[in-house]
């Protein structure tokens, strides 16, 4: 699923270019964001993914207008908004803590933005009704916000942010306070609402699974930098850097020697001496050594043959699949994930000598 090289400007909803956010001055200054550029398309579910402290929330707050960049520009449909206060941006936020107004009812919370925009009363009433219906909260409209549950609070926060029909909706880890089952439900709900309303969603999370299941595209961030932007498939299967590969899902890293590059594909020599072809990460800088990444499910344990060989160290049964840890002859551990089927076992016994067969095109050469 290769990305189109250029997106026409008219389809870009939010464009951040060269964003720097620095706290403090001099040698002790902290760079929360370091030259960050992202272009988020219209009607896209875009996720900023990274561990806490990576700058994803700072970037979101900058798009909302709660923080101002030290350098760089933020454009909304081509218009520079970096200097506008939050109440002049057609962008709404669903806060991590929901930040519902405790002195207002559910209905009044949802109506707040429309009232501030000075919409006529009749329009407000019908819009609020519509929003409460969208989030299934019609019956609790007159409740106070301390009389509803966390999941319901989440829905009200969503309805409140969607009511003024913003061009972009920002969501700051909105599901992190919910329990597992509710979170799964809300993930599906959010996706439904995004396609129903056609609004661009920018979603912040540290949960890689959440990011993979919900997003159209993901930007992986670490230490104030964007490491990779791509579809969930790109991010998972073709990670550009070690951090991305490691942060998302489980993976195997293999040191390899670079033999040559032909037609965009690399020829590498594995520690076992076997040569194979591998895809190259974007922005790869040629060098004689390479780090290869292979997802556990893209390899297979075979009785003999394969590109690698070693002894089975551990076999862990997970119900749907089995993880087989193999100690390679060169001393590394390699993990293989095999789907279980009713008719056959994975065919590996602890201590057995096996080969590992890597699927064609499953190996990727990292940039770092």
């Amino acid at each position, binding site marked *: 699923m290769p990305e189109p090289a250029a997106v026409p400007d008219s389809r870009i909803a939010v464009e951040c270019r060269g964003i720097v956010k620095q706290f403090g001055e001099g040698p002790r200054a902290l760079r929360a964001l370091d030259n960050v550029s992202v272009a988020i398309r219209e009607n896209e579910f875009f996720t900023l993914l990274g561990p806490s402290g990576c700058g994803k929330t700072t970037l979101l707050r900058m798009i909302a*207008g709660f923080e101002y960049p030290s350098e760089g520009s933020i454009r909304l449909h081509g218009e520079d908004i970096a200097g506008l206060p939050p*109440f002049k941006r057609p962008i709404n936020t669903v806060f991590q803590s929901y930040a519902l107004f*405790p*002195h207002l009812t559910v209905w009044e919370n949802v109506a*707040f933005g429309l009232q*501030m925009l000075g919409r006529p009363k009749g329009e407000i009433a019908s819009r609020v009704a519509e929003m409460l219906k969208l989030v299934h909260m019609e019956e609790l409209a007159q409740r106070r916000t301390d009389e509803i549950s966390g999941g319901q609070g989440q829905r009200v926060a969503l309805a*409140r942010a969607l009511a*003024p029909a913003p061009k972009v909706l920002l969501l700051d880890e909105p599901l992190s306070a919910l329990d597992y089952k509710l979170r799964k439900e809300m993930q599906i709900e959010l996706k439904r609402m995004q396609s129903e309303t056609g609004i661009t969603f920018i979603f912040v999370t540290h949960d890689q699974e959440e990011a993979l299941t919900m997003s159209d595209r993901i930007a992986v961030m670490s230490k104030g930098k964007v490491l990779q932007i791509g579809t969930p498939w790109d991010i998972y299967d073709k990670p550009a850097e070690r951090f991305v590969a490691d942060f998302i899902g489980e993976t195997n890293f293999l040191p390899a020697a670079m033999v040559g590059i032909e037609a965009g594909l690399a020829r590498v020599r594995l520690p076992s001496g076997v040569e194979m072809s591998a895809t190259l990460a974007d922005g790869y800088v040629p060098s004689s050594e390479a780090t290869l990444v292979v997802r556990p499910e893209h390899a297979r344990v075979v009785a003999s043959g394969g590109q690698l060989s070693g002894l089975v160290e551990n076999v862990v049964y997970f119900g749907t699949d089995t993880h087989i840890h193999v100690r390679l002859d060169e001393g590394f551990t390699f993990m293989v994930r095999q789907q279980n089927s009713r008719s056959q076992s994975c065919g590996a016994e602890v201590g057995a000598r096996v080969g590992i067969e890597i699927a064609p095109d499953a190996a990727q050469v990292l940039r770092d």
Partner: protein
Amino acid sequence: MASAAEIARRDEQGKVRSRWLLSAPALVIVFIASIGPLFVMLAYSFMAKGDYGDVKPGEFSLDGWFSVFFQRDIFDDTLSLADAHLSILWRSLRLSVITTVLTLALGFPTAYFIATRPRHTREIWVFLVTIPFWTNLLIRTFAMQQVIRNEGVLNTLLMWLGVIQEPIPIMYTDWAILFGMVYVYLPLMVLPLYASLEKLDFRLIEAGYDLYAGRLAVLRRIIIPLVKPGIVAGSILVFIPSLGAYVIPRVLGGGKNLMLGNLIELQFGAGRNWPLGAALSITLMVLVMVAMLFYVRNAARSGGGHG
């Protein structure tokens, strides 16, 4: 042998008895120090006045209450409203309301400023606000006199700056009383306001901005409703002592600009009319109670009452 239920019942009785016994000292103090004197006042207001002050204990009379509102002409015995008392009453009410409004206007930004400082600096600011309490009220009032008198700090400064050519006479006017009361009662407004603002979740303010509320709308629709308990408490704490102020109008208002507190003092002192003094005191109390009831109910109705 007593049953378990019996023991439990006796135990419960014992607990109730010891509870009363333990709270008895407090109850005695409350009765002697606050409720008792009120009854004495009430009784005095219905007695005839003695010739040299005091009251005639056995003699029932409505004269005290009568002269709160009316006066009898000494020559032709015609009745008329007690203009002097009513104008003092009116001035007291007016000055107290203005004081409350001014302390709120000055106290709110102050409290907001303190509440938005980093945690450890907040404590220093609160501490600074309480410093005036270390000095006696009388001394603080005299200090205020030094500021506002014709040759005082304020007039000297304004003349030096060339804003005015001649000193503005402030002393012995209602303005002087107002200056004094705002200065003295400001901390009583700032502290409860700060207590409310400190608990305010500032993320709600961000949410307001996010939902297209400008700065004024955020103040009006979010901050004020949420800190209403602090506004109510501060207003009560300022309004009640303002209405009964005695030292401030005496020192800064001179002899002409009396407030209720001075009028009452006059009846127990030079006026030698204790029943009238007692009746005036109770009038003041009723006034405060009515004003508070009206205010609190109004505050509760207009939005929230929650937080």
